[in-house]
């Protein structure tokens, strides 16, 4: 009995809050967690605990997101309502959740066809923190939606139901991904630095020429985060047009570039596969920080090019064991050597492997 009373109380308060939010159009409503808008159904549900996420989730993949969507709509969420409880499969388990329905006012359609100016779509909200991105009223963005045979529309990916986008009309040129990339790239022209930073983060996941062009433009941004994150993104996709700039900052670290940004550039070097970069990568094996040296050695290894052999032999002389391992395994893979040690075995008897490949290097001179 006491339980029922409490439920009724929560129902009244929640309903009043939701109504107030709609009627008054509270400016804080878009920051309000969805839990506060919950309309409790007749059967009590486990209390929802929206906590900050501290868990793993998929990497954003703009190509896959675009490909999987039937509808990609640029617009603003006009309203959100609950639509009953659902069971969600997550991590091999079933968890309880709430189905929500959002009404989206469409400003532009980048993929698919929309009947009318609005569309309603469903999205799940688990009762416990899940890493799913929340959707709030007034949320503006690029929404990635899927429509089933019954014209029931849902989000494609609960982790990335929408992406930030510029409010103007996007250029509707090229294929679906080109249009999406253009809409994101337009953010780079906006004065709000956090939007430009987000744009680089998203464009990083789109391996297209248009995205590469936009990232190249971003390397001239006044904001150091935008500039260096864009440069790292270019390196990760194997674009060596910015390698000289990267070499400069990695060889001569400066306090002007924050340590984590420099580290991001360093680890991105491993994405390079162009043999024209071999000489630079060879020089970066002598860089002051370990991340740069390891990722340079990793890039040389993954090129699978005989032209990289001298640099891989140089890696054997490095002061870092991780770099020496990449040298050993890179040479072993190139020569199709049978005896390939794991990292642990290498560390136990490093001298044996390093000496062997040094000897091999001497014998081919």
């Amino acid at each position, binding site marked *: 009995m006491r339980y029922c009373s409490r439920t009724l109380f929560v129902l009244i308060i929640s309903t009043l809050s939701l109504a107030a939010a709609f009627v008054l159009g509270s400016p804080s409503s878009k920051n309000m967690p969805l839990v506060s808008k919950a309309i409790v159904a007749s059967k009590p549900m486990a209390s929802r605990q929206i906590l900050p996420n501290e*868990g*793993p989730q998929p990497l954003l993949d703009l190509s896959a997101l675009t490909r999987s969507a039937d509808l990609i709509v640029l617009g603003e969420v006009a309203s959100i309502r609950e639509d009953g409880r659902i069971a969600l499969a997550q991590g091999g388990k079933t968890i309880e959740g709430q189905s929500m329905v959002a009404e989206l006012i469409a400003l532009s359609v980048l993929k698919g066809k929309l009947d009318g100016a609005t569309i309603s779509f469903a999205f799940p909200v688990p009762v416990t923190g899940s890493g799913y991105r929340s959707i709030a009223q007034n949320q503006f963005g690029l929404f990635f939606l899927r429509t089933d045979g019954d014209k029931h529309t849902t989000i494609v990916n609960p982790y990335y139901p929408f992406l930030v986008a510029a409010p103007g009309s996007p250029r509707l040129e090229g294929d679906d991904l080109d249009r999406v990339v253009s809409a994101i790239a337009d953010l780079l022209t906006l004065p709000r630095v956090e939007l430009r930073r987000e744009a680089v983060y998203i464009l990083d996941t789109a391996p297209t020429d248009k995205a590469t062009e936009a990232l190249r433009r971003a390397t001239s941004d006044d904001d150091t985060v935008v500039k260096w994150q864009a440069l790292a993104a270019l390196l990760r996709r194997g674009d060596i047009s910015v390698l000289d700039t990267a070499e400069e900052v990695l060889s001569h670290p400066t306090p002007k570039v924050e340590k984590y940004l420099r580290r991001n550039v360093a680890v991105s070097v491993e994405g390079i596969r162009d043999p024209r970069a071999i000489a630079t990568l060879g020089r970066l094996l002598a860089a002051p920080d370990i991340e740069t040296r390891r990722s340079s050695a990793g890039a040389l290894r993954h090129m699978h090019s005989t032209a990289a052999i001298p640099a891989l032999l140089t890696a054997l002389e490095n002061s870092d064991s991780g770099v020496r391992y990449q040298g050993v395994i890179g040479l072993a893979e190139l020569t199709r050597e049978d005896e390939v040690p794991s*990292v642990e075995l290498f560390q136990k008897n490093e001298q044996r492997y390093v000496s062997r490949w040094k000897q091999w290097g001497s014998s081919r001179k």
Partner: protein
Amino acid sequence: MRDTGPTRNRTGSYPWRVDHDYTTIVSITNAGSAPARFLVEIRYEGGPYSIRPKELKAGETAYFDLRKLRDEQTPDRTGRNLPRTLDRGQFYWGVVATPGGGQVIGRAEVVSRSARVVSSYSCPTCCPPTGPYGGFAPQAYGLSVSDFAPTGSNGEMLDCYGNVYWQNIYWYTLTTNDSAVATADSGTYDLYGEGVGSTYVVGHFWQIEWEFYESENGGACREWDYLPSDSAPVDVHPKITGSHTLWWFNGETVSGYATNITLSTSTIGNSYHWEAVTGGSKVSLTSDGSDSITLTSAGKSDSANDVGIQVTIDGQVSDQFNITVYAPNDLLQGTVTTTSDSTWGYATHLNYYIRDQFTTQLSSGVPVNEQWTTGIFDDYTGNNWRRGSPHGFTTVSIAAFSDLIQGEESNRTPTPIGPGTGTAVYHWGQDWYVGSTTPGSGRRVQSDTLQKYTAHAEHQNIVTPSP
């Protein structure tokens, strides 16, 4: 043995030069009506450079551009290149392994435009080389049922100047003593394993000797043909077939990754015994005693192919079948990005790539989870930030994930702010596992400290691998 009577020399030796703009091109032509074989040796100080014997069809001509051979650094049969500075020497050729000697003629043209020189040589030497003298090399063969194995040979040729050089043997016939065990292809010189057992491979080849008779026609070569044979033992073993790759996730099964595999043999016998002869601690074998066995991973390989499996069938032991047991082993941290978040102040994405023990990224999606290893340690006195539960999920398509760490709601203490350095709020211990979505299950690959600030989050004190 056959004496074919007197014949003209089927051999030649010419001076050549490629200094300045000189070029030398040697042509060898089979003017006869049957295929003929010849060898070439380019002689110079520090040489020779020996070209593997070639066969010429009737009417066919082979050309040798000495400058090209040198400049393109084309290796000879022993892997030797002509020195880049070499600009002259002697070109020797001779008919070999051609009963009757064939009708092979040679010519060398030396040309220099600047010196306006065109010289043509067609200098016969004494008699063609004799031989080959030799046989199978290696002198024993082992292969599995249904497998091929190439035979090899080693023969020596002797020219009229007393020079000895190598030439492989052209088998006139190639057979085995027991075709139920192994057969031989006289065209490709390959052995083929038919059934478990032992036999011999037997080959016959033409051995040709030349003798110079000064009194005949002002000097002629007389040919003597022999048909010697050689043999070598061949052992055919049971063969194991199956995958060479196994995965270990600390007892978990993972879709798309084989944590158990079945090996089998097509050899029929009365008794079968399977055994892990190396790396036995990394696999467990079940259902011994039949023509197949199931291997389940029990640990990871220390080096590639370090688990060796053999089957013994009625006393006959198979070749070792090597397997590598791969395992997720470490995390490679990619880029770290912090963006602003309207609800939580900030969202830090720490990207990670999951690698095996050879630091190669796993090839497809895999379950991953985190586990808290300590309670919360406050850095900001009086903070009321919360900690969520550890999560697990299965990566899609690729073995990579992003650890998303958000700040807190704006009504909490301290107030989260947009991306930046910020002030330390609290931290705790964290482990990462691969192979399960259940926190704490699977193979542990990393331990770290999850540190949250008011404006971003970090993984600190990272230890990976973390077995």
